[in-house]
């Protein structure tokens, strides 16, 4: 359709985020959901943000589209998508960015589709808004999109209401809607979490294929290490609003450096003896209203030291494309997971 979909050779990154912080202010407390996150995504690259509930991964995604309630949220730092400073955009340019340049897939396809319109109408509406297409043209394009996301008997599905579709089909329709205007960046907020395991893998394969074919940069948020290893080029592990480790997926899986990543890997189930206890990380994440001084993982860390309580560990690079934030990085002793 147009050349912007193709991945450009190794030039400027598609997304650059520098020192992003997000704070929610309410009468009772201020919640520091994201505390200084920096990362970049190249065109055509898949970055997986991995973290448990409340680690700030979804908030980061929403901040990138400025979907958070403006009045109660303070965002600082810099978000640049395809050369545009997102935090400085006016309302009109922001609407053009949303759905045009960047689009988003949501976790729960049942509630992310409007129940009173057919899925076809919802895609056509988006197309007409962004592309000024005629109704017939938009419908033809919606049909193409349904074929692209492998929805069986697409003609009939366009006229179905969301409740008439199965979970997997709904998520496919959601993906078709997100792709409708040829975005260069796709934000996926746990798009497979609400699906059955068999459907989950199909949707993952589909997303991966579409992402490659269309050359979209993709940021994929998940708490599932297996999903991340399936789809990601790079993984960023988030804990308490900070990225604690980042690097290429194979490296991270083979050789996790941060104690938290090591803990996550140890707590997944794969082929252990059925009587063996699953390793769990002791404790629970810090209260984001009262962040501890020093390393936020410190209280749960099996290798924590006095200095961990004083300051958050600096960035260190064990190799050119990896980043870890731990004082013990580069030291001999490793966590004993």
């Amino acid at each position, binding site marked *: *359709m147009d050349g912007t979909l193709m991945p450009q050779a190794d030039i400027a990154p598609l997304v650059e985020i520098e020192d992003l912080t997000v704070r929610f202010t309410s009468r009772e407390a201020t919640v520091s959901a994201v505390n200084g996150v920096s990362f970049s995504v190249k065109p055509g690259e898949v970055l997986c943000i991995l973290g448990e509930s409340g680690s700030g991964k979804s908030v980061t995604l929403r901040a990138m589209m400025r979907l958070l309630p403006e009045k109660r949220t303070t965002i600082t730092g810099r978000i640049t998508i395809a050369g545009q400073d997102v935090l400085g955009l006016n309302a009109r340019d922001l609407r053009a*960015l949303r759905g045009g340049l960047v689009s988003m897939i949501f976790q729960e396809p049942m509630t992310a589709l409007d129940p009173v319109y057919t899925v076809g109408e919802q895609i056509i509406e988006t197309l007409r808004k962004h592309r000024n297409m005629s109704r017939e043209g938009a419908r033809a394009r919606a049909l193409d999109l349904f074929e692209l996301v492998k929805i069986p008997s697409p003609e009939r599905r366009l006229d179905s209401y969301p409740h008439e579709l199965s979970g997997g089909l709904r998520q496919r329709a959601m993906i078709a809607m997100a792709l409708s205007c040829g975005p260069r960046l796709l934000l996926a907020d746990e798009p497979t979490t609400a699906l059955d395991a068999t459907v989950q893998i199909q949707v993952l394969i589909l997303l991966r294929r579409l992402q490659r074919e269309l050359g979209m940069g993709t940021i994929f948020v998940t708490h599932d290490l297996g999903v991340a290893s399936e789809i990601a080029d790079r993984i960023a592990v988030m804990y308490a609003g900070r990225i604690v480790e980042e690097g290429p997926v194979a490296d991270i899986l083979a050789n996790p450096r941060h104690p938290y990543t090591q803990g996550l890997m140890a707590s997944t189930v794969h082929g252990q003896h059925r009587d063996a206890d699953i390793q769990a990380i002791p404790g629970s994440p810090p209260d984001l209203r009262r962040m501890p001084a020093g390393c936020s993982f410190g209280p749960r860390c099996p290798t924590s030291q006095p200095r961990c309580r004083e300051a958050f560990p600096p960035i260190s690079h064990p190799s050119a494309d990896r980043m870890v934030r731990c004082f013990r990085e580069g030291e001999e002793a490793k966590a004993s997971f």
Partner: protein
Amino acid sequence: MTQAVATSIDTSWEADPAPAAKTRTYWQSVLIRIFRDKATLIFGTVVLAIVLLAIFAPLIAPFDPYKESIIGRLKPFGWRGHPLGTDELGRDMLSRLIYGARSSLLMGMVPVLVATLVGGTLGVIGGFAGKRVNTAIMRTMDVFYAFPSVLLAVAISGAMGGGMMNGMIALSMVFTPALCRIAETATAQVRSLDFIEAARATGARPLTIIRHHVLGNVLGPVFIYASSLVSVSILLASGLSFLGLGVKPPEPDWGLMLSTLRQSLYVNPIICAMPGAAIFVTSICFNLVSDGIRSAMDVRQ
């Protein structure tokens, strides 16, 4: 998209619950369900008949509803060609009942319509805006809620003086808070759902979101609630007329007729019960039709 490149995934076996060859729209399926529901269909026909009677009253009524007769007062059914007898001033009961449907239906529907527009708009604004706007609107509505609805209607129309117009204004004010609350609740529920955020994520304007996604989801519950209020409105309007606060004599109105005929209860009880029966039948039919529409519209879930 320029391509639909061949892929290795086959999805044809994926669970596919929708039955084949189904391409009717939502409103078509609602209509079909209404037509399958015998009770709703019958009561709907009665409502339609009452509406038609009211509209074509001058053509249908056998006598002039205002023509009095000193000798022919409170006569039984069939007396000198009066099918339902005569009232306390010798006027033809059937003609008066037919003409009375006009004011009763008007008093039943107009206030509900006005309240739906006013209350619905306020409720959607309050529910979508939230915070202070919501507090301002909803607490004002709560003031109206503090009074029993009959008392409020009587108080308002009493203060403004009788007459049909004032009666309708009073009833509109009685129904507005209830509809406002329904609209507000539905909007607040819809507002927090993902598809509103999804719509924002596709770059929709706030006004488009309200018009398209909020109204689309709020209109259903508001309409259903409003339709159930029509019968309440007819009853309240009759009550107002009965108290002399609604329609003025000698206009034919069911509530008013009930009030004036009450003195003749011992002379000809059947005649006196006629307007009451008309009110009862009409409001019950409206209620049942509204129930039928509600269940027909509940296709999803």
